[in-house]
């Protein structure tokens, strides 16, 4: 009797997880179809500002800059939900990696993975990427990167324009990124995305970070870390806490429901008082 009841609880939990996962995928799909160029518009705003600085022009708040500011404010207050839910490039990555996962499951094979330590170091590339792009903007030579960028290739393919003559470098980069996305989850977001680099540098309010009650964990359970697409460890305050893209998978997978937005310290104090 007791066993049966436990099973239903577990089943309920699993169903809840499935529904939450479906909701996230649904939101991602909706953003992909309705606002597929949000990420490039927002980053265009940043580039526009730095181009204006390079030319000594007055900074203008155009639609791109507005998009960027809105996304930044949301990120500051709530965390990087844009990355986890709204960015078309992230969604594309999730879809491509989803295919890889499905193949691995069906064929019962495991594709090689980049070791976690290497991943953490590779995540620094995106800051260099951001720096290089902004420098080219200030110097007024950003057109060279723009016409060869994989983002440009992506928007062209979205427009069903397959004449790759003028921008084949961008097209090849895009294809390489797709291959990367296939093997490593959130390959572009983790290692290359210049917009993600900006978000990582923003002072995201600490209460938007997911926290783990480590004391209550099952010994040796690393479910949340294994599930995390950006290799975040959730162990207290860390430099990399802004890597979190709020996909919420750690929250779903935790068998004890240990991960939440609540402050661990406050919880401890409450206990002490009790």
């Amino acid at each position, binding site marked *: 009797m007791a066993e049966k009841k436990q099973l239903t609880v577990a089943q309920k939990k699993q169903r809840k997880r499935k529904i939450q996962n479906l909701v996230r995928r649904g939101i991602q799909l909706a953003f992909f179809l309705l606002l597929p160029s949000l990420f490039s518009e927002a980053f265009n705003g940043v580039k526009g500002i730095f181009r204006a600085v390079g030319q000594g022009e007055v900074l203008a708040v155009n639609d791109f800059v507005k998009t960027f500011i809105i996304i930044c404010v949301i990120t500051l207050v709530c965390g990087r939900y844009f990355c986890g839910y709204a960015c078309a490039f992230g969604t594309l990555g999730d879809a491509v990696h989803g295919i890889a996962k499905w193949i691995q499951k069906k064929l019962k094979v495991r594709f090689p993975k980049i070791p976690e330590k290497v991943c953490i170091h590779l995540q620094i590339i995106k800051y260099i990427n951001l720096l290089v792009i902004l420098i080219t903007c200030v110097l007024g030579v950003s*057109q060279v990167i723009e016409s060869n960028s994989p983002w440009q290739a992506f928007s062209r393919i979205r427009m069903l324009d397959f004449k790759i003559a003028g921008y084949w470098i961008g097209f090849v980069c895009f294809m390489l990124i797709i291959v990367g996305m296939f093997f490593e989850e959130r390959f572009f977001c983790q290692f290359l995305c210049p917009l993600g680099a900006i978000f990582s*540098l*923003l002072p995201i309010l*600490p209460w938007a970070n997911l926290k783990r009650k480590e004391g209550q964990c099952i010994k040796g359970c690393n479910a949340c870390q294994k599930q995390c697409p950006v290799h975040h460890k959730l162990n207290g305050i*860390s430099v990399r806490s802004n890597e979190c893209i709020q996909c919420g998978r750690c929250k779903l997978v935790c068998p004890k429901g240990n991960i939440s937005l609540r402050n661990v310290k406050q919880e401890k104090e409450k206990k002490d008082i009790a």
Partner: protein
Amino acid sequence: MNRYFIARMLGCILVLSGLFVYQGKAQEWQKAKEENQKQVAEVENYNRQIEKEQRAKKEEALYKDGSYEGTAKGFGGDIVVSVTIQSDTITAVEVVSAKKEDSAYLSMAMEMPKRIMDAQSYEVDTVTGATYSSTGIKNAVKAALEQAK
């Protein structure tokens, strides 16, 4: 308090105040530049007026009066503009259709008709950040003017 949060906060404030200071300076430069441009425009307008009068004396016009449509490729597809000419002056530039342009980029490129009318020529700078759409408008105006000859 989280020291990484404080460090990021300081960094952010630094960047924002840097941009703020820059904006003040840039506005000063802009003012000086506008003064200069005004003078140049006055001279150019005067020259154009004289040219026109001379042409009128010879009774030959550069363009025929009327509305002309021109088409050129933008980012995603064709952009069609309509150019209205009255006694050798471009009096209106309208984008008739640009179905396959991304709306945000197109709205930036909508600066082009004004630039073209101000310069009275299709040879103007494109809008940075919306290069493809504004080049499309520019070339479409060029095509329309070809017809008006």
